[in-house]
């Protein structure tokens, strides 16, 4: 199993930390992981993205042309990454702020209304965990118990009291993910 993922959105949405939690979860279950952020001046312009690879084998290139899954959280990222999903691959997005919805006919498309859902939770900072839940429902590459273990490892101890609310957010994500377009 090798899953090559791009997570892209605004800085502050928790794009990079979502990637880290995926990686920690992969480590907990004995897999190889790679996390490659966009770094540099573009971060200050507002967009942030990270490539995450989780695999049972040694990971080759950190830079890839095509992704198994794109998790897209703003319009700029939709414009940039929709075309980079492998044919037959998966695109997951939140419609908040999206003016042009995905148009590809050769990929599976899912919607997770995480921004709207996060507004109903104790803290809107759970946004990225709701998205993660949606992703894991579709691609259960890491087990839920390992995600919680991954959360414990990636969160500093002073935030460990936030783990239950994050766990709840992940579960909520699994419940609200909607199919938009499924290939046969």
């Amino acid at each position: 199993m090798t899953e090559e993922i791009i997570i892209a959105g605004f800085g502050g949405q928790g794009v990079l930390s979502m990637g880290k939690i995926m990686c920690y979860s992969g480590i907990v279950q004995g897999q190889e992981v790679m996390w490659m952020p966009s770094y540099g001046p573009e971060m200050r312009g507002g967009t942030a993205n990270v490539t995450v690879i989780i695999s049972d084998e040694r990971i080759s290139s950190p830079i890839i042309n095509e992704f198994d899954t794109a998790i897209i959280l703003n319009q700029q990222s939709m414009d940039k990454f929709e075309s980079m999903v492998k044919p037959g691959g998966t695109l997951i997005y939140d419609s908040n702020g999206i003016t042009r919805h995905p148009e590809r006919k050769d990929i599976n498309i899912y919607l997770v209304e995480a921004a709207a859902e996060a507004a109903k939770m104790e803290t809107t900072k759970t946004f990225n965990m709701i998205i993660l839940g949606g992703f894991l429902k579709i691609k259960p590459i890491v087990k839920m118990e390992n995600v919680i273990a991954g959360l414990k490892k990636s969160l500093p101890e002073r935030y460990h009291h936030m783990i239950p609310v994050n766990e709840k957010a992940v579960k909520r994500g699994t419940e609200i993910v909607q199919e938009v377009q499924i290939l046969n």
Partner: protein
Amino acid sequence: MKELRLMKGNEAIAEAAIRAGVDGYFGYPITPQSEVLEYLMHERPEKRTGMVVLQAESEVAAINMVYGGSGAGKMVMTSSSSPGISLKQEGITYLAGAELPCMILNVVRAGPGLGTIQPAQSDYFQSVKGGGHGDYKLIVLAPASVQEMYNFVELSFDLAFKYRTPVLILSDGAIGQMMEKVEIGEQKVRLTDAQVKERCPWATTGKDANRERNIITSLDLDPNKQEIFNQKLQAKYKVIEENEVRFEEIQTEDAEYLFIAYGTSSRICQKSIQLAREKGIKVGLLRPITLFPYPSKRLLELSKQVKGILTVEMSAGQMIEDVKLAVECSVPVEHFGRMGGIIPSPGEVVEALEQKFL
């Protein structure tokens, strides 16, 4: 079971330095390697092991602090990125000239000049051909993963003290910034003064009554003595070339074409191999781990079995010169690379291979 952590390459270097029992780090911040200094400052190694971590007033000051620490037989290091490494070159040639062991990390960004902060491999010439003046070499290690960033710290110091020479770790912004799983080693205890004296009888550790004073210098105004010293240095480099060549081969057994790439480019090539083989092109990879000494001998052997060699570098083509020298014109050698902080994609590399040889 050993401890596993998710770390950036820059953080792995810093943690490895503390664990290896390094005595001192002297540096100055620059993207994309600032996490080395940041991590060290955050970890408070002066409490963990007594290691000194100092942000110097400039790169020039930092490398000369390394000179001082190394002259006293201590395990010392510095790190920077390309423009900062250029500033350190005077110090580096002095270190080589005074035969001082130390570790220098270059997390390469694109040049020339201030260039940009994105990854590149355009400091190959500077690293292996002598970035400063005079006939000297550095042992140059090229990590291709975060684990290798970690592992090469201890290896660097082993080699540096074995041969009394500066060792350069030539990394790049991608390996510095990306996170991977790292297996963390045991904490080593820093050497005592007595152990330093035993390991470095040449160091300025305080003169004992039973020996002459030790002098650390790269200056000898007598040309006859200076030539003898140069011959000694060259003999040392020869021994290093015989004993310390390191490389990795991937799918070379049946290869009809060969990629040569180090660091980040070698990771890209591994994916390109997979893509090319899906198209029926039998290609393999020779990844030099030491850039000096260079795996020329093995390269010459492999050149007899392949129809063409493509070097893949994030530069205008620098290592290709060493590849051409190694294969003695026995097979066509071409270069593919991107510059200015662009990382080539695996697909582009396959296209280049097809375009140049098929």
